[in-house]
Every structure is written in structure tokens, then in C-alpha cells.
């Protein structure tokens, strides 16, 4: 062992021993985003601007610039990431156009010593951090909630998303796993609502006549709960427990029902503010903290007590959102670490 390697080893040990020592106030973080064309993405960018703007003002980091590609194409985003390397950013937070086609550019960034944190649209390159959504759990949780409300079980109606999309398969697999776990429930029918209220309303109205009278719950994927409620109301059926998906119209309807007849349900989805979670994770990595490569996004759950507060902060036509704090990120990191 030469003196230099010994010195390096000593520094490495020191760095491990004193993880909170690194200062990130001179560090610059960039957001590489592939698409901004819907309300979820708009909310995501707004949350980023709000939280990172504050972090820059507070001197936590030196800069946190957001970049969105114009055409939602992987090659374009790869070029964007390479430009970020050139601009000397210390970390890149990434919502990727493709899980694989950016791997080359991500590798270049890692080789240049840049921390890459992908979220929502994650990348498979091993050197990047991934903050993924556990869609299966999102489906399973709904059945679990229903089993708490109705221990005796019953018939369920499943509203699926857009056929052939990975997210639809995952959530549905989770719901079916939930039914297996709580066998007192059975799925009496399932329709595709395409994550849109009007499509869901038509689909549910179409299947209702063929369903048994005792549908006790509707398991959903988000963006379809309000449509399902309209269809049940129009058919003059008893209103089942419909799981909501954090959309403003769904929350509004839930509140009206609660005020009128004490209707109870829950609502679950992913908050667009997950971009801010990714920001804090990147900051923590720059700070020298031990962070597992794979983390799971917490769901944003709204229960009966939180309904009014959630509805107040959700813009009409929007999605309930939450911005994450440094402490939230630390909690997610700690949880991800123990799960591995």
C-alpha cells in the first residue's frame, strides 16, 4: 500500500464515519423532464419550482434548474442530459422518456461523477437511483381497506385503466392479489375506464345490468371514481364504497355525499410532488448519505378525516398534491434501506 492509497483509504473511512459532513450549498441540481403536457406533469413542475426555489433561497443548494424536452423523445432527452454534464451540474433528477434508451447518457453522467436520481419514469442503468411507484401495492391496499370496512366481504366491481399499458396490468395484478389475500371478496365484473371519468361512466353503465345487485365495493385506478358514482346513481343502485383516485371532481363528490348521508371511503394515488422527493434524495446523496439505489414512492392517501383539507388545496380539475420535505426523504431512505 502506497502512501497515497493509504491516504485515500483513510479519507474514505472518514467520509463514511462522518456522513453529514459534506456541504451541498455549492452544489447544483438539474431536473431533466421529458414531457409537460398534462395536469399531473404541470403540477409536478410547479412543485419542483416551489420547493427547490425555497431550497436555493435557504442556501441548501446553489441551483435547481428545470429542463423539459420539447418532443418527448428519448434521443432528445439523452442530448439534454449530455448538455447537463457539460454544464457541470452535480446531480441530475430525471423523469425519463424511456427506461432503457437513456442508459448510455446516464452512464456518461455517472462516469463524470454526477448523481442521477430517476423517479416516476425510471431508468434501468444500475448506477442511477430509482424512486419507483409500487402500483401493485396501490391495488392491494384498496382491497385491504375494503376488508377493514366490510369484514364479511362481498362482490366487487373492478375498473381498469387503459388496456395494454404496464400501469394498468400492475394495479390490476395488485387488486387480484388483494382478493386472494381476502377471499371473502370476489370480483363480479371488470371494465376498462381508461383513467377518464366519461369513459368509466359509460363502461360502468354498460356492465351494471349484468351484475348482481349486491356490489359492495368498486376498486379503481384513479380518474374513474366520479364516473362510476354517476353510473350507479343513474341506474338507481345502492351506492357501493368507491375507492377514489385523488382527482378534484372525485373528492368534491365524496364531500357532497359525506355531508348528505355520511358516505365513507378512501382515496389513493401518487402525488405529482414526488419530483420534490427526488430532489431531496439527490441532495442527500450529494450530502454523502448512504442511500439505497432503489426506493419506493409513498402513496398519497386521503382518508375521511383528511378530506376537507385535501379538497381545499386541490385546484378544480387537478390532482391532490403534496410537496415533500427533507425529513420525508430521510424517512423514505431509511425505509428503502431496511427493505433491501
Amino acid at each position, binding site marked *: 500500500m502506497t502512501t497515497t492509497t493509504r491516504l485515500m483509504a483513510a479519507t474514505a473511512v472518514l467520509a463514511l464515519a462522518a456522513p453529514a459532513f459534506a456541504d451541498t450549498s455549492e452544489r447544483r441540481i438539474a431536473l431533466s423532464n421529458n414531457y409537460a403536457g398534462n395536469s399531473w406533469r404541470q403540477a409536478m413542475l410547479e412543485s419542483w419550482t416551489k420547493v427547490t426555489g425555497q431550497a436555493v433561497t435557504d442556501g441548501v443548494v446553489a441551483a435547481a434548474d428545470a429542463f423539459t424536452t*420539447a418532443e418527448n423523445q428519448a*434521443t432528445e432527452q*439523452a442530448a439534454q442530459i*449530455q448538455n447537463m454534464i457539460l*454544464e457541470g451540474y452535480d446531480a441530475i433528477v430525471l423523469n425519463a422518456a*424511456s427506461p*432503457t434508451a437513456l442508459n*448510455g*447518457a446516464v452512464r456518461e453522467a455517472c462516469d463524470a461523477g454526477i448523481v442521477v436520481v430517476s423517479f416516476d419514469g425510471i431508468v434501468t442503468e444500475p448506477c442511477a437511483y430509482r424512486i419507483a411507484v409500487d402500483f401493485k401495492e396501490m391495488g392491494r391496499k384498496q382491497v385491504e381497506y375494503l376488508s377493514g370496512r366490510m369484514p364479511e366481504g362481498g362482490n366487487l366491481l373492478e375498473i381498469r385503466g387503459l388496456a395494454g399499458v*404496464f400501469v394498468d396490468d400492475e394495479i390490476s395484478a395488485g387488486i387480484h392479489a388483494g382478493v386472494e389475500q381476502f377471499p371473502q371478496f370476489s370480483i363480479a365484473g371488470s371494465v376498462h375506464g381508461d383513467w377518464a371519468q366519461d369513459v368509466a361512466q359509460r363502461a360502468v353503465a354498460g356492465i351494471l345490468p349484468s351484475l348482481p345487485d349486491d356490489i359492495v365495493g368498486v376498486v379503481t385506478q384513479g380518474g374513474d371514481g366520479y364516473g362510476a358514482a354517476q353510473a350507479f346513481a343513474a341506474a338507481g343502485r345502492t351506492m357501493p364504497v368507491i375507492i377514489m383516485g385523488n382527482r378534484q371532481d372525485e373528492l368534491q363528490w365524496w364531500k357532497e355525499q359525506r355531508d348528505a348521508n355520511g358516505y365513507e371511503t378512501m382515496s389513493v394515488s401518487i402525488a405529482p410532488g414526488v419530483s420534490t422527493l427526488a430532489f431531496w434524495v439527490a441532495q442527500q446523496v450529494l450530502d454523502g448519505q448512504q442511500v439505497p439505489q432503489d426506493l419506493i414512492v409513498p402513496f398519497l392517501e386521503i382518508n375521511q378525516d383528511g378530506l376537507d383539507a385535501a379538497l381545499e388545496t386541490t385546484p378544480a380539475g387537478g390532482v391532490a398534491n403534496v410537496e415533500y420535505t427533507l425529513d420525508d426523504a430521510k424517512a423514505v431512505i431509511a425505509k428503502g434501506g431496511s427493505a433491501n
Partner: protein
Amino acid sequence: MKGIDLRLALPVLSLAVLLGAVFWMQPRAMSYTGLNLLFNLAVPIALATIAQMLVIMVDDIDLSIGTYVSFCACVTATLLHDTPVVGILVLAAGVGVYAALGALIELQKLPAIVVTLGMSFVWGGLAVLLLPAPGGASPDWITTIMKARPPLMPMAIVACILLALASHLLVTRSAMGTLLRGVGGNARSVARAGWSVVRLRALAYGLAGVFGVLSGMALVGLATSADANIALRYTLLSIAGVILGGGEFTGGRVSPVGAVIGALTLTLAGSFLTFIRLSPDWQIGAQGVILILVLAARLLVRRRRTA
């Protein structure tokens, strides 16, 4: 001779101006690694642009090159990686289909724009069939070539210079290239001179197919894996690159060196817009403005010459 010089002067000048602006804004780019990062994604675009140029040279236009390159990328990342022999056969079949399309377009006097638009859906469908979910892996030898670090100049620049030289020799200097440009200039006189235009058009398309394959391979080498939609932008980028590089839609007037420079200019324009922090809402428009400026400059130069 003077005409060719002028035709090339403008693309070179626009590239130099943009490069100067990028260096001024981001001095870090003025290094071996910097230049490589700036230009390595231009290599597959330049290859696709040469493919497009070969088709434009015979007075046609290829609207399927983007999906074709995506398809080649998917073959490279799956079949060529797992079973090289099958991969080579499939890629060769792709080139064969391109040549057959050229012959078909000539024989039936079909509009190339319609045939290639139709084919773009075929290539896109095949790419999705091969790779329903993004993935695959780059064959090691391609990655080694694309990520090589030759002395003096970064790989991206070396590759572009080699490509410009090779296509210049092929198109401008060889007897075959002269004939092909003749097809674009005046197909009837080429036919009267005793050549088979069917065969020549098939040759032009077949060559385009070869450059498309190379583009897909280069892209996978850089990205390390593929996606069925990986190169959709290339259709428009390649057409813009040819025109930016001094080529014209009719008359067999194309410049291979110009086309490579055009591809580099377009890539650089994208980086330039990122560096000046232009909002993405304006970026496509701004890229269009850069294109229009260069074309307007070309028109002015030509008008002065004829005046």
C-alpha cells in the same frame, strides 16, 4: 466547382457560428470530453441524414427512415446481440426490402412519399413486435467502437469525418454516384443512355437501407439498449439536415459533406437552445427559426450570384 464551394460555405459557416456561440456560453465544451458529449448523438443522426440524402438524390423522399432506424436499433439490441447470425440476416433483409421498394417505386411510378409513409407503420410495427417493452442490450463490439477514445480527436468527430469522406467518395467521385445523381437530374436521359433506372433506384434505396442499419447500430452503441420509438425524430431531422447542408429536393443536387455538417448543426442547435435556457415551449419554434435563417441566407447568396 465554384458552385460547390459556395454550396458548402454556408453550412460550414452556420456550424462555425453556432459552435462559437456554444463555446462562448459553455467553455467547458471546448475539450476532448466536451466535444464528444456535444456531438456523439449526432453520429447516428448524420448516418440517417446520409441515408435520407441518398433517397433525396434520386428525387424521392423517405418518410420511414425514423421508424426504420428504430427497427434496426431494436434488431441490434435483441437479435444481433443474442444470435448474431440471425441478426445479420434480418438486417440484410431490411436492406433488401429498401432496395425492393426503390425498384417498386420506379416500376409502378408510385409516389415515394406515400410508399415510405406506409412503410413507416410497417417498420414501427415490427419494432414493437421485436421489443414490446424497452430493453435489449448493445453488442459489446458496437459499444466498444462507439465509446472508443482515439488520440487527438473524440470518436464523434472522427466518425463524422470518416462518414463525410466515405459518402463524398461514394456520391461525388465514383461512377456509380454520378449515375445516381443523374437519375435525380434527368432519369430519362440516363435510361436513354442504356442504364436501368429500376436497378439504379433500387441501388440508391439499398444504400439508404445500409446507412439506416449503421445509424441504428450507432444509436444502440450510444444508448446501450433500445426502445421501439427510439429514433422517431430522425425522419424530420434527416430531411432538415440534407436541406441545411445545401441539398435540394429535386435535380439530384446533394452534398454529402454538407449533409453531415447539417446534421451536426441541427444537433448543436438543440444544445445551444438548452444552454441559453430557452423554455421548451419555444424550442421547436426556435429550431425552426434557425432553419429558416440558414435557408434564407442561402437564397440571398444565390440571388446575388445570379444578379
